[in-house]
């Protein structure tokens, strides 16, 4: 069943969507931007109806019983030892069959949606490699021009209307990849090659977050998701594939020198320079991203400087060490990084 079709059915079912109003909606299964999420929302709304009706039946019956309780005046009536239960016996059978009917419906619906999620497996898909680290996301695409894998971090771009196969791997512990607006979760497990197929169809910015407790900073392991038009996506990927821009001015040049010959280079890559450390996120186009530090700070000069000088204050326990620089140098580094578009 098609995502959009099921969305219409969903909207017809229940005005759950209104709920979204109150929250930002950039990280919510209730505001689908993808085929899979839409199918799951449809299933959720069906469940809400069936379970809601069953619940009302229970509460209604309980209400009837309680009316008798409060009508009963005698403080301690003689116990009824052999009550006549023929009607109740029959109603029990009815009740049981109602439950069975409801469960069959829901199990069937789950099966259908499960197949719908599986359907994407068959399609030719864009391959994206996502590697989870404590506490950030390494993301790699294959550059159509050169065929090389191009790395970025904490920002996932997806072309609308095309299925992407996210190949998940963990460098350390178990994490879980989750972009609720697009699709459900898939755990990222050391020693297992998991993958999840997502088919986004609504353009815009969304947010993903690690959903399996992965240590001290589990709470601050998020990433941005941008659903582009195919053209935008191609352009973006082409930019990402390029090496880093050379420093444009003397200040940037000073920053360039510190970044590539100083402590940053131990962990970070700036493609086309001497900075080739793999442990940390790729910085080649950091300025083109929307946020830094795994989606916790918006990308701007002040945040860059703060993050470099006192990461432990912003994200206690992060593996990013505090780097002490002269005020001038700190400016230069931030200035240079800002040019890495």
């Amino acid at each position, binding site marked *: 069943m098609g995502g959009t079709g099921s969305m219409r059915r969903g909207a017809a079912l229940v005005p759950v969507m209104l709920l979204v109003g109150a929250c930002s909606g950039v990280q919510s299964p209730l505001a689908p931007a993808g085929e899979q999420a839409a199918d799951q929302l449809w299933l959720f709304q069906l469940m809400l109806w069936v379970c809601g009706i069953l619940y009302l039946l229970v509460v209604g019956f309980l209400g009837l019983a309680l009316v008798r309780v409060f009508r009963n005046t005698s403080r301690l009536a003689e116990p009824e030892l052999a009550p006549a239960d023929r009607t109740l016996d029959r109603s029990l059978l009815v009740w049981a069959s109602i439950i069975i009917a409801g469960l069959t419906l829901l199990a069937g619906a789950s099966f259908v949606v499960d197949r719908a999620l599986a359907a994407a497996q068959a399609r030719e898909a864009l391959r994206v490699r996502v590697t989870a680290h404590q506490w950030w996301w390494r993301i790699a695409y294959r550059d159509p021009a050169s065929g090389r894998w191009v790395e970025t971090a904490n920002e996932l771009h997806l072309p609308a209307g095309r299925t992407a196969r996210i190949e998940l791997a963990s460098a350390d512990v178990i994490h879980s990849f989750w972009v609720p607006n697009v699709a459900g979760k898939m755990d990222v497990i*050391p020693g297992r090659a998991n993958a999840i197929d997502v088919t986004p169809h609504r353009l815009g910015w969304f947010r993903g977050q690690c959903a399996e407790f992965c240590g001290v900073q589990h709470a601050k392991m998020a990433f941005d998701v941008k659903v582009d038009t195919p053209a935008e996506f191609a352009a973006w990927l082409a930019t990402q594939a390029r090496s880093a821009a050379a420093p444009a001015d003397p200040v940037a040049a000073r920053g360039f020198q510190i970044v590539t010959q100083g402590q940053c*280079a131990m962990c970070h890559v700036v493609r086309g320079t001497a900075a080739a450390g*793999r*442990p940390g996120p790729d910085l080649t186009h950091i300025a083109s991203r929307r946020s830094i530090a795994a989606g916790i700070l918006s990308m701007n000069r002040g945040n860059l400087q703060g993050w470099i000088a006192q990461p432990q204050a912003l994200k206690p326990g992060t593996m990013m*060490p505090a780097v002490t620089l002269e005020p001038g140098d700190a400016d230069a580094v931030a200035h240079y990084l800002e040019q890495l578009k």
Partner: protein
Amino acid sequence: MQRYASFTFRAATSLVLPGVFALVACTKEGRTLGPEQPLTPPVGASDKRIGVFQNNLYQVSQGGRYFSWYGCAGCHGSTAPNSHDLAPDLAQHPRAFDAIYAMIADHPRVPVHYRDRIPTEQLWQITAYVRALPATKPELRRRQDLDEAGEPQGAQWAGPVR
């Protein structure tokens, strides 16, 4: 602030034991996260700060991760081919903390000076890890390294374990 919260919280919840014990606060197991002051390299073998790193399991294990991240394990790791394992010779002739720190900071065999490349705090942690090596059972060290086998090492990264 966080420390304060944590203290009042413990005072409230750990009625099991008299608060005196809370003061012991086991430096061995302790984990202090949050903003910190810049560090200077150790001064002499009896620098008071040595204990803070050497006696704390969390600091030592952090040192272990950087030990492999910065490629030390490439030559000195338990699983490295023809590895110059540090544990045996450190066991034979132990070195003072500051001596090992200096040896790492100005490593003779590498082109770069780690002193300029690795933040001081991490050098402290790596030193603590290296000094702990002789006391670590080889099989346990191997087991830890296998757990961390999927992590990048310097400019090399075989990719995650699949």
